[in-house]
């Protein structure tokens, strides 16, 4: 009882309203003093930041800054040597990636990880695996609960497919698709899991201007229509500044800036990192 009240109090505190009138809630995920090492190499050094309910949060930084490592910590692919990960007001024990996924955190990958041998529809359906509850025998026999579940899942998946405008390639094997569409299918699969938190690792890398505009629109629509909290890594500064509510800037594994886009843009450390001032 008291625990619940505390949690509510925590999620209620410190929300804000964005310029375009979206309500941002309390803290959903908090990274506390995360340090990640590979042998002697320090990939992330004592970084803390939070992600709020309903927000689009960007992580930016030059190559090798540790952005992807950070995303991998959130999604459980890496476990940090030091620091704590808090999700929905609870400290998260070290977890396997599949357990993180079952908690409602979906992700895409920088270099696309799709099931190449399957069709677009099958790929997106795998995103529903965490939502399927019926027993194996019931599913095999297409029985009662299993049938209802399969129909419901199909309907939801079709909704996502319509939403991302990939109806015409539903039955195409993923291996045949061009790069930009693969990125979109990967987003569809992540959305199919109805994630509370969506992690996007360079969703626009390697795209042309038109494709980037499409993807930006989808990201904003996802956030708007499904209310999904999004954390994304991106190189294109222009895109990041347009999309995100708050930005974390990393350089050499350290956090050098954190705040709204305008504030970060004028931060001297950030400018130095991007223009390449010598490190002592």
């Amino acid at each position, binding site marked *: 009882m008291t625990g619940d009240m505390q949690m509510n109090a925590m999620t209620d505190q410190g929300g804000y309203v964005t310029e375009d009138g979206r309500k941002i809630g309390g803290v959903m995920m908090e990274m506390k003093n995360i340090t990640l090492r590979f042998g002697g190499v320090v990939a992330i050094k004592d970084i803390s930041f939070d992600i709020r309910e309903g927000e689009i949060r960007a992580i930016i930084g030059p190559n090798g800054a540790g952005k992807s490592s950070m995303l991998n910590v959130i999604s459980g692919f890496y476990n940090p040597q030091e620091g704590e990960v808090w999700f929905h007001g609870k400290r998260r024990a070290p977890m396997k990636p*599949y357990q993180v*996924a079952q908690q409602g955190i979906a992700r895409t990958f920088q270099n696309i990880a799709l099931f190449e041998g399957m069709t677009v529809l099958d790929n997106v359906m*795998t*995103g529903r*695996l965490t939502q399927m509850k019926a027993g194996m025998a019931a599913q095999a026999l297409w029985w009662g609960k299993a049938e209802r579940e399969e129909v419901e899942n199909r309907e939801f998946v079709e909704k996502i497919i319509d939403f991302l405008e990939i109806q015409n390639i539903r039955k195409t094997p993923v291996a045949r698709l061009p790069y930009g569409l693969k990125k979109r299918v990967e987003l569809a699969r992540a959305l199919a899991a109805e994630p509370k938190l969506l992690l996007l690792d360079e969703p626009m890398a390697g795209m042309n201007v038109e494709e980037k505009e499409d993807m930006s629109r989808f990201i904003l629509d996802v956030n708007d229509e499904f209310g999904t909290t999004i954390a994304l890594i991106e190189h294109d500064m222009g895109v990041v500044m347009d999309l995100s509510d708050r930005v974390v800037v990393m350089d050499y594994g350290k956090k050098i800036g954190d705040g709204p886009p305008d504030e970060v843009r004028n931060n001297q450390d950030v400018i130095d990192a991007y223009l390449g001032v010598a490190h002592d």
Partner: protein
Amino acid sequence: MPEQLLFAMEVTLNGLMAGVLYALVALGFVLIFKASGIFNYAQGVMALFAALTLVGIMEGQIPFSHLINATLGTDIHHFGWHVPGILAIVLTMVVMVGLAWAVNQFVMRHLVNQEPIILFMATIGLAYFLEGLGDIMWGSDIKTLDVGLPQGINTWIDETTFEAFGYGFFIDNLDIVATVIAALLVIALVIFSQYTKQGRAMRAVADDHQAALSVGISLNFIWVMVWSVAGFVALVAGIMWGSKSGVQFSLSLIALKALPVLMLGGFTSIPGAIVGGLIIGVGEKLFEFAIGPMVGGATENWFAYVLALIFLVFRPQGLFGERIIERV
């Protein structure tokens, strides 16, 4: 009807039955290959191990009795009881699931993201380990396996065909049973892999480990499951071959016959394994019947491999295998 034609028909039927048994072994390969990208060289030895364990349990043999006697100076061999066939099959399946768990825990888990060739080498090691383990556990003598399957000539077919054509077909009851069981097994496997959550997860894991993890699939769970299913298929194959020709170590060599079957059918297709098995079974019997006498016989030893070679040249993915699509 001319006698030659009747002979040919009988040979074809027998070839179909033999093909079913080849297909059973090939199925085990396809399952693991589809789910983990590993070509499991140990599949044949797993069938042998399953058959040995089944006989051992049925006869109440004490496992490792030679080892125990040699070290402790005792003279024990049997518990002195007999376990009925069905119960023994269930117990053997428990052993095969345990084996699946051990394979994953001690070998495969440590080789995640390695090259396929390394995983293949690991299964070669596994094959020799299992062969040795089977030997130490249950002894190396030839055993007869009788789980109560009907054997011998099917008199009904014999009499019916005799009345119809004046020539009775010789069809072994065991082969008929094997065909029915194989059909049921295949239907069950196809339904499992296409229509269940676990089956979908299995196909996902085979395709991409990272992506599978990101949609909430536990790799370890799927791998133990896949090796258990392969163990089950091995057990069925072991029972059929063991009942037919006794449980002996040459049983593990039937795995070699599965290779041409897979090349014909395609490494990734369950129906392919079946059709491939049937083609090889019928092909080698008919070839022996028609061409054998002209070249001095024994064509069954090489026919399958030559056929597979021809396929490799003209259709490397096999009849039903997935087309290999490479984007550059």
